[in-house]
């Protein structure tokens, strides 16, 4: 089983609280730890960035969901990577556009009936 499928199933089965709340949260967490292991930045630097991001969000209201929390995480990671000049805003927007276009193409293809990939969301019961 691929880790992605597992995450999707865990989420579908309502077990989110036991692990990652969403696949993107898992990827964020994984990227952060992997980057720290490779000494791209230290976890202390990340922690500082996360504290700042949480502080900003809490000026507008409380954090009471995993989505809000990992949104702070995302902003902290993006900030650090930009600070280290590994990525920039413009590049990010360009890649986002490519990703959406590719996803749309796959989606249209599926709808027209030419393509039937297995999708883990169809079978959430399999986890049990």
């Amino acid at each position, binding site marked *: 089983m691929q880790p992605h499928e597992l995450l999707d199933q865990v989420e579908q089965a309502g077990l989110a609280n036991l692990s*990652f*709340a969403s696949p993107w949260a898992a*990827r964020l967490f994984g*990227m952060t730890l992997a*980057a720290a292991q490779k000494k791209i930045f230290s976890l202390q630097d990340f922690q500082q960035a996360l504290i700042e991001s949480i502080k900003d969000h809490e000026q507008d209201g409380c954090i009471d*969901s995993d989505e809000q929390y990992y949104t702070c995480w995302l902003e902290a990671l993006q900030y650090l990577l930009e600070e280290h000049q*590994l*990525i920039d805003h413009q590049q*990010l927007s360009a890649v986002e556009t490519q990703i959406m276009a590719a996803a749309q193409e796959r989606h*249209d293809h599926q709808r027209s009936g030419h393509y039937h990939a297995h999708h883990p969301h169809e079978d959430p019961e399999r986890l049990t």
Partner: protein
Amino acid sequence: MSHDHKVEKTWQALRTEAIESLLNEIGVLDSSEVDKVVYHYEENVGPRTGAKVVAKAWVDDSFRERLIANGLAACAELGIGGPETEALHVLENTAGVHNVVVCTLCSCYPWPILGLPPVWYKSSAYRSRLVREPRKVLQEMGLTLGDDIEIRVWDSVSEIRYLVLPERPTGTDYLSETELAALVSRDAMIGVAHLPPHVSEGA
């Protein structure tokens, strides 16, 4: 292209995917390295890891002493740990002292020992209120402590991570280490719950 055929993706999911894709492209990070971390946290690490440490401390006095002296080194004896935690301070609950852990500024947590923190641990409410009114917050979470019990709140904002060593429940004298580990809950290791007395099957 009509709108009802549009692919839905939250902006966070999209941004995350774009960051990963860019890091791959410029050779900074390979997705297989990210997979490894995620898989490890999904499959190998979780509250059961911490429960093993607690059960071992209950049955082995010399291990407990080593655990309290140097949490990380003692966990490493059991093959538990990781580069994510630099110091682990184990807090032993007693009849008169109850320990509870929070991270007021963000959400520091002993990941390699307990896995990922629950949602409430990261919430503004828990983080802002626990230090101010621990007895009330614990009560709201279902743990009522008598006035004679001292509550010590530990804030993880630093490089130290904390693990609460709960008191061994009564009625567990004849249980094996594995059976004991099964009784230990994540919340007890954060300090927001007690472990109930054990009632053996058929009793």
